């Protein structure tokens, strides 16, 4: 007896009828047609339109590939004598990201509590906060920095503020996603004992999300170190100022040195973070 199927048949399966296979024992199964050809056709159409729109021309790349080595070749021959000029902006970059990350993570925590559906049962405030967070994330950091640099003047303050805003958006999102997956039984027990929402959250949920929270903060710190090096491009302080200045002057050997230092710092921070992660996880 075939079960009465009330499931809606997708449009695709109604247009391209499923293959009807009769098995040896008389039963039959329907094998839906592969969607692959349709997806491929759409994909190819999109690629062709995009190629037209962007003016992509592979011949140009082959013909002018020599030009590529002009800058890259100089970048890979860093000017080590330039190092003393890098130290101050480098420390500035690290400081900007540290303060921006700490401030962003501190502001992100309470926001994420309001944005998680299992703690905050007030749906309108939850949706409003989530919407604000997605809007905050959808604007690139560089745009924040260029606007803030106009408002607060060129310098590290605007950069730090831009990093903070950006970090709040990411940390709060990652955090409310992990809050929604935690075990709620201790929280409910606390509530039934008569604890307030905040007390219950602090004692029952915080220990559960703390490792993920620290992990997210470290991840943001890595992102921010990379981002803050670019922020200087719009005058928000740090290594980016040097990157802009050196590319403007076509001093690509110096640029190579800046990138080498940046690379080393990112590597060291990655290693330190991995060490912290292995301790807390």
């Amino acid at each position: 007896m075939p079960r009465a199927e009330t499931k809606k048949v997708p449009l695709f399966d109604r247009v391209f009828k499923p293959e009807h296979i009769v098995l040896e024992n008389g039963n039959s199964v329907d094998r839906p047609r592969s969607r692959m050809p349709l997806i491929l056709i759409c994909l190819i159409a999109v690629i062709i339109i995009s190629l037209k729109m962007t003016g992509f021309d592979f011949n140009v790349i082959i013909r002018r590939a020599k030009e590529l080595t002009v800058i890259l070749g100089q970048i890979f021959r860093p000017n080590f004598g330039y190092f003393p000029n890098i130290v101050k902006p480098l420390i500035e970059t690290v400081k900007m990201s540290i303060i921006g990350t700490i401030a962003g993570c501190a502001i992100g925590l309470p926001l994420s509590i309001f944005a998680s559906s299992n703690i905050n049962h007030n749906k309108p405030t939850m949706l409003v906060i989530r919407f604000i967070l997605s809007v905050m994330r959808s604007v690139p950091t560089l745009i924040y920095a260029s606007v803030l640099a106009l408002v607060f003047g060129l310098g590290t303050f605007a950069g730090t503020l831009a990093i903070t805003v950006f970090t709040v958006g990411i940390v709060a999102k990652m955090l409310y996603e992990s809050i929604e997956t935690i075990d709620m039984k201790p929280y409910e027990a606390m509530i039934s004992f008569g604890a307030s929402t905040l007390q219950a959250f602090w004692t029952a949920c915080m220990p559960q999300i703390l490792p993920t929270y620290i992990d997210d903060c470290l991840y943001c710190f890595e992102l921010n170190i990379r981002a803050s090096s670019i922020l200087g491009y719009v005058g928000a302080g740090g290594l980016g100022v040097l990157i802009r200045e050196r590319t403007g002057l076509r001093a690509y050997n110096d640029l190579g040195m800046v990138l080498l230092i940046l690379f080393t710092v990112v590597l060291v921070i990655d290693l330190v973070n991995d060490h912290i992660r292995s301790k807390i996880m």
Partner: protein
Amino acid sequence: MTVMEQLQAEPKNLWKRIVLFLVLLAVVAWGSDSITYNGIAQQGSVVASGIIHGITHPNLELLFNLTDAGVPYLILQTIAIAILGTIFGAILAIPISFLASTNIVPKWIAYIFRSLILLIRTIPSMVWALVWIRVTGPGAFCGVVTQSVCSIGMISKMYITAIEDLDTGILESLDAAGCNTFEKIRVGILPQLSASFISTAIYRFDINLKDATTLGIVGAGGIGSPLVQSITYSRWSNVGSFLWALIILVLIIEYISTRIRNRLARGHR
């Protein structure tokens, strides 16, 4: 009183907490000394009110202008850059990530390719754009090439994780069933990798869409260059319409890509 006993049994790490707190405080103090608040810049309040006015009064003429300079065309161009950059990057990353997986090739070869990936990741996308502009000239073409190269770094990092998680037991059983190499790849490897590869590419598409805006600053096409130009020349109503378009675009794409990735993760059709 077992509850009391349990409570007393909680490890006492008060000192550890105090030290950690002091270290954090010291780091903040060290960090904040160079970040000085100089007050609002001379034109600062004018800019701030200009921004707010611009966002609440976007330039509608620009928003619905169907020519090359209008918002719809620029948005489409930004999407096109991100699509091509992601697809090329995702394809280029496949051979590199296979060559950088320790379960496919000998360790020393894997480390060579891993350092190559690290090298690509280290150079910021702005610098890549400047490097490629010499080859392609300014415009959307440059954006595509730059994003293809920049995407390789992160995409292959995720690909490598997927490849190293491959269940080789399946390949052994296919061997035992008498499959040839091609059949083994088709039914043993592709189904294991395709979901996570596609999911990675879609995730990268999200990032590339935002990066495409940033690249516009150095003249690599898309909505970025007119947006930054309007900021520098204080045309706030234009800034407002660009920002609205950008925010709506990113929100829609993020929503769609999250849905697709959730379905891929759960294995629905």
